[in-house]
């Protein structure tokens, strides 16, 4: 069967909410899955089920990690009190200017039972995606996926400041640093700490609530591994629908 992508793109996105599971199974049998349909229907990508298998859940199967060390951060969101000591530590460690951020804390309020309102804080940073959209769009390979650690890093000298990566990032994790005339982002403190033998990031170290647990998933003894693969624990990622396969996991406690 010939796929007429141009014609398919003109169709209105019907979403998958109403799609019976029977239909999905048929589609999977067909050997392809649709990814990116949530992106307002403007991006339609078809990828083989074999590759998409990794996307069946946000957490990779234990032991199957594409990088070694495979760095990750597990964020226990319900413990965050928005004190922003992480942010301060990041600013100091990585020389972040006042107009940008490598990590920040989002705040969300929602109505809960008994007319009460609950505040939730959510730390965000670069998700060091396995399929980083920023890397895909960079015209000069200034941003790249480190082949060993999987950290999405920057060659500042190669950056021409086109900011396409900033537009492509699903997590708004990049900013243009005037001082460098280059885009800057979180690199898990690679240049400032990890490459110098430190074992954790500045933000994780500064957190008084043990919200941010940084670690290497290939090490089953690491706290990150133990949390992510603990019995009865549910972890989730932000914007899984983009297919970027992020490496920042969220859970409660």
């Amino acid at each position, binding site marked *: 069967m010939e796929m007429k992508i141009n014609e398919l793109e003109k169709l209105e996105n019907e979403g998958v909410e109403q799609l019976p599971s029977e239909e999905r199974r048929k589609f999977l049998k067909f050997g392809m899955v649709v990814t990116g349909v949530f992106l307002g229907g403007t991006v339609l990508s078809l990828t083989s089920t074999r590759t998409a298998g990794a996307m069946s859940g946000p957490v990779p199967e234990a032991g199957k990690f594409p990088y070694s060390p495979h760095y990750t951060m597990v964020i226990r969101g*319900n*413990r*965050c*009190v*928005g*004190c*922003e*000591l992480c*942010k*301060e530590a990041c*600013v100091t460690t990585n020389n*972040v*200017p*006042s*107009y*940008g*951020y490598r990590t*920040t*804390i989002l*705040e969300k309020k929602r109505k809960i039972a008994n007319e009460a309102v*609950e*505040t*939730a*804080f959510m730390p965000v940073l670069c998700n060091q995606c396995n399929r980083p959209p920023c890397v895909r769009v960079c015209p000069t390979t200034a941003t790249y996926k480190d082949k060993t650690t999987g950290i999405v890093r920057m060659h500042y000298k190669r950056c021409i400041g086109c900011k396409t990566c900033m537009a492509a990032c699903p997590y708004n994790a990049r900013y243009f640093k005037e001082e460098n005339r280059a885009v800057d982002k979180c690199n898990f403190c690679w240049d400032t700490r990890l490459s110098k033998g430190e074992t954790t990031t500045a933000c994780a170290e500064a957190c*008084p*609530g043990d919200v941010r647990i940084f670690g290497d998933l290939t090490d089953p003894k690491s706290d990150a591994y133990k949390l992510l693969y603990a019995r009865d624990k549910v972890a989730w990622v932000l914007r899984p629908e983009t297919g970027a396969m992020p490496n920042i996991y969220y859970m409660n406690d």
Partner: protein
Amino acid sequence: MINNKIITFATVLLAGSFFLTGNGHAEEAYDVQAYGPKTTIIFNTPVTASFDHKVHTADIGLDCSSCHDSEMVAEKRGFAMQRGVAEATGQFTMAAMAEGQFCGVCHDGDMAFGVDENCAACHQLPDDPIIWTAPVKAVIFSHDQHVNDIGLDCESCHSDVFAMKVGAAPATGNYTMRALNDGQYCGACHDGETAFASNTQCNTCHIGVKGYNRAMGTTPDTGGH
């Protein structure tokens, strides 16, 4: 009918005039020489407290010399008529009063209510809310909620749990969640039985840097840091 209207009008007029003149008489009746200054005295040292002469003289019937006696002043049991003398002793404290000095001469729980009760007769609740910025930014506390809504007394907390001095708890260096979970500070009640446990509902009290900036009316969130 007309008569009725006239009578009603006259009654209202009469009542109004009584009200006005009655008030006028009361104004004239307050004798500063006999009863002391009419405006409430506000002490600001060591903490804010108020004192009303009228209640003590015109209402209760004390003489000026009951408190304004030079011998008593010398013994820190009375009050000089100048401003700030009691405060300047450095001993104008609740502890001194409990030992029978200053207000404690009468306010001993026998002659008048004791200094360990009825706090709000002289003290007001501090400006709400209290926002602590140490050891982390930022934790909010409402006196109004704890006193007026829940019905706690001042001494529920201001006995062994919290000193009344601003910043006293953070200054100990021990004002931490660990201490709370061990039953200190807020944890005295927030133990999961009396009130929600200190290690739950974090953001009921923790408002974060964003909440702090909103409360202070400073720096709207610009996305940067």
